[in-house]
């Protein structure tokens, strides 16, 4: 009896541009040290501000 081990890989095709994209991001920092990086959309920044995250640092 023999055993074989077959390795598999999952394809991860996507729609992204080969060159990626240029994006301006904002990093928000919580006083406990956690950080969140998001795009500069006001409603998103306000969402994290409500959780105690602030711009800068």
């Amino acid at each position, binding site marked *: 009896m023999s055993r074989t081990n077959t390795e598999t890989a999952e394809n*991860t095709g996507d729609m992204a541009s080969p060159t990626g994209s240029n994006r301006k991001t904002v990093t928000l920092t919580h006083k406990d040290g956690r950080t969140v990086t998001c795009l500069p959309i006001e409603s998103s920044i306000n969402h994290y501000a409500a959780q105690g995250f602030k711009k800068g640092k």
Partner: protein
Amino acid sequence: MGRFNPKGVEKWLFFPDGDLPADLTAITQTEVNAVATVDMTGVQNSEALFNTGGWTSSPSTINTPDIKSTETGNVEGDSTRSIATTQYYLDKIPASNVIYTTFVKGTSGVMVKAPMGTAAAAFSDAIPCTVTLRELDDAANAAKSFTISWSQGTATAGVFAA
């Protein structure tokens, strides 16, 4: 003439409320390249869009039976839209997942489908939409991913301007 594979060509752009295009039938290159405009296809080998669904309208008919005949015709009914989705691979570095962190519930704007890219004369569909759910997917034997679900308004067909 020529069919094409959309990989690397197709674009999905998101214009947040407050930075919407002036004319959804003729989005300009300046608006496409504005800082506030989000390239929703993501970044190759990182957090990238790999599946979309529900961003189309489904027309319906209303049957018009009568007592004259067993043959029943119809008239045009409502065209309706369901919840739309965009699905992304997760990057294992938290800070690289900026689509995930940005598109929290309630984020609102206009999604623009650009299957041919965004050069002048390419076609577009612009759809007002709002994030209704953002959730990590739970498939075990797959590259980890997350799904954003959107409510949507009606589409405006257009052609990109120079």
